[in-house]
C-alpha cells in the first residue's frame, strides 16, 4: 500500500486554486486561451493501419487489424467494427494493469459510439460471402502517455489508423464458388476501408466557479473540472454523439455555443488528419515505385529495352508528379509481371 501511495500523482491545493483563478481572467496554465486546441501531430507506423497521435503531453496509439469471421445472424451481410482500449500503467500511474477501469470503458464507449453508430465505416462493403464470411475490423487504442483529454486523442488515433488501413482483397473460388481466397498483398493491391465521414470528438471542460468553459483540458485541468462534455461532430457540422459526464450543470445556450465552436474545431482537425494521411499515402506509394527499377532485367534486347524505356518513362513521370494515383502504381506492377 505504501508503494502505491508513493506512485500516485499528487495534486496540490495551490495548483487547483491557481487554475481556477487564472480561468477567471481567461488564462490557462499552458498559455492557451479557453478555446484554443493544443498542437496536434499525427504520425504513422511502418505498417498500414497504425497511427500515433500526440497532443501536448497526451500520446495515443491506434492500431487496426481485420479478420474474416462469421457475421451476426441478424446482419448477415455486414462486417463489424469493434474497439478495444489498453490503459497501460506506463501512461499514467493511476491506471491499474489488467481489469479496464471506469475511464477505459468510457473512452472505448464514446469512441465506439462516434464511429460505429454514426456509420462512419461502411460495414456492408466488408461482406465477402453473405451469412458466411465478413471482415471484422478491430481497433486497438493504446494510451502511451496521459496528458489529459485522452478521448479526443484516442478518437483521432482511431480515425487516422482506419484511414491508412488496407485489408487484403479476397475473391470467391473453388468448385462450388463458395470458397474464399484471400490474396496476399504482393498479388493484389490491398483495399482501403470506405469511410463515409470523419466524426471528430471535441471535449469541453466545465468549471464550477463562474461557469468557466475550456476546450481540450490538460490532465491538471481535468483534476479541477466539475464536468465534461464530449461532442462528436464531422466536418459538415453533423452531430454524431454527445457525452456529458460529471456533475456540473450546463445551460442550453452554453451547449449550443460549445457545439458551434466544436464544429469549427472539427473542420480544422479533419484538415490536419487528411493532410497527414495524404502525405503518408504519397510516401508509401513513392516507396513502392522506387523498388521497381531494380527488378528490371539487365540484358539489352529489342523488346526488353522497349519495355524498360516505357517503365523508365513511367518512373520519371512518377518522380515529377508529387501525388501519384493508385492506378499508375498498378500499371507498373502489371508491366513487371
Amino acid at each position: 500500500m505504501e508503494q502505491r501511495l508513493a506512485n500516485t500523482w499528487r495534486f496540490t491545493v495551490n495548483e487547483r486554486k491557481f487554475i481556477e483563478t487564472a480561468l477567471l481572467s481567461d488564462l490557462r496554465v499552458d498559455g492557451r486561451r479557453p478555446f484554443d486546441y493544443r498542437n496536434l501531430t499525427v504520425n504513422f507506423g511502418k505498417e498500414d493501419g497504425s497511427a500515433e497521435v500526440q497532443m501536448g503531453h497526451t500520446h495515443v496509439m491506434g492500431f487496426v487489424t481485420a479478420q474474416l469471421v462469421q457475421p451476426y445472424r441478424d446482419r448477415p451481410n455486414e462486417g463489424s467494427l469493434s474497439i478495444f482500449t489498453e490503459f497501460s500503467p506506463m501512461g499514467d500511474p493511476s491506471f491499474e494493469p489488467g481489469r479496464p477501469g471506469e475511464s477505459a470503458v468510457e473512452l472505448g464507449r464514446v469512441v465506439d459510439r462516434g464511429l460505429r453508430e454514426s456509420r462512419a465505416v461502411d460495414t456492408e462493403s466488408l461482406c465477402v460471402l453473405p451469412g458466411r464470411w465478413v471482415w471484422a475490423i478491430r481497433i486497438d487504442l493504446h494510451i502511451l502517455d496521459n496528458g489529459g483529454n485522452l478521448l479526443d486523442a484516442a478518437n483521432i488515433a482511431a480515425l487516422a489508423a482506419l484511414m491508412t488501413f488496407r485489408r487484403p482483397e479476397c475473391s470467391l473460388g473453388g468448385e462450388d464458388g463458395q470458397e474464399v481466397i484471400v490474396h496476399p498483398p504482393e498479388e493484389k493491391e490491398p483495399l482501403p476501408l470506405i469511410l463515409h465521414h470523419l466524426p471528430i470528438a471535441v471535449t469541453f471542460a466545465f468549471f464550477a466557479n463562474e461557469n468557466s468553459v475550456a476546450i481540450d483540458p490538460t490532465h491538471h485541468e481535468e483534476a479541477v473540472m466539475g464536468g465534461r462534455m464530449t461532442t462528436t461532430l464531422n466536418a459538415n457540422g453533423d452531430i454524431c454523439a454527445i457525452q456529458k459526464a460529471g456533475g456540473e450543470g450546463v445551460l442550453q445556450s452554453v451547449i449550443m455555443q460549445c457545439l458551434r465552436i466544436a464544429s469549427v474545431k472539427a473542420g480544422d482537425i479533419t484538415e490536419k488528419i487528411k493532410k497527414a494521411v495524404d502525405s503518408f499515402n504519397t510516401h508509401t506509394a513513392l516507396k513502392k515505385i522506387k523498388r521497381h527499377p531494380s527488378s528490371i532485367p539487365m540484358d539489352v534486347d529489342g523488346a526488353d529495352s522497349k519495355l524498360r524505356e516505357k517503365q523508365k518513362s513511367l518512373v520519371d513521370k512518377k518522380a515529377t508528379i508529387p501525388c501519384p494515383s493508385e492506378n499508375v502504381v498498378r500499371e507498373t506492377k502489371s508491366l513487371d509481371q
Partner: protein
Amino acid sequence: MAKEQPGSPASFVDQLVVPGDVVLDLSNMANQTIKLGSGLRQESDAISVTKAGKFRLSKPNKYWVESSQKRYVPCLGDSILGIVVDSKADNFLVDIKGPALAFLPVLAFEGGTRRNIPKFEAGTLLYVRVVKANPGMNAELSCTDASGKAAEFGPLKDGYMFECSTGLSRTLLSSPPCPVLEALGKKISFEVAVGLNGRVWVNAASPSTVIITANAIMKSESLSVQSDLNLYAWMEDICSSCGVVYGDTQTPAIQPSIW
C-alpha cells in the same frame, strides 16, 4: 585518468562518471571532512559512484553526482518541495517524488511542541529540508534549518507549482544565477521556490505573470543557446505564445475570443 592522480578530487570534478567509478580515496585525505551528496557511497576508504552523471564539487567539501531524472532520490540536506498526503499522530506523510513517501515529524517546526501541532490538509505544498535519507527507509524531513529556525521553510501559499526534471531544478539554483531566471527578473517581478526534487513553485501579483514565468522555466529545459540576444528573442516567443507582450506583462493584452 584515475591512475594519474588516484584519490585526487580534481581529476574527476565536472567529469562524467558512471556507476562503479572510484572517485575519491579517503586514505589520501586523512584529515579532511567531506560531505557526500546523491549518487555517491562510501566503502571503507573508497568513495564510489552509484549513478551516471556529472561529478560535482561545491567548495570546500561537498561532492555529489548530478544527473537529470524525473524521479528524485532523497539526499541529506536537500531543500525540496513536498506535498502533504496524510497526517498521522506523529508524522505528516509527504510526497517528494521519491520512491517512497517521506515523514515530516509534527514537532519538526520552529518552536514545535505537542501543544501547537500545525494542521495541513492533504495537498498542502511545503518547502522542507531532508534531514534523514537512509537507504531502505522513508526519508525524514524538517521544516527548520540546522539551528532550529523556520528560515523560509514551511507551507507555500497560493502561486502555482509545476514539475520539471531534477537537472533543471539544479540549474535554476546554480550560481551565477540561471540566465533564464535573470532575464525574467529584469522585466517582471515574481517569487520562486525551487525544490531539488524537480518541483518549482512560482508566485506573482497577476496570474499572467505566473503563467509566463512557469512556461519560460518549463521550456528552458532544452534550451542550450544562452547568449543574451537569443534568450530575449526566445523569451518574447514564449510570451507571445501565452498571448502577452514581453516587457509589458503588467497589462496583459488579452484579446476577446473570436466567436
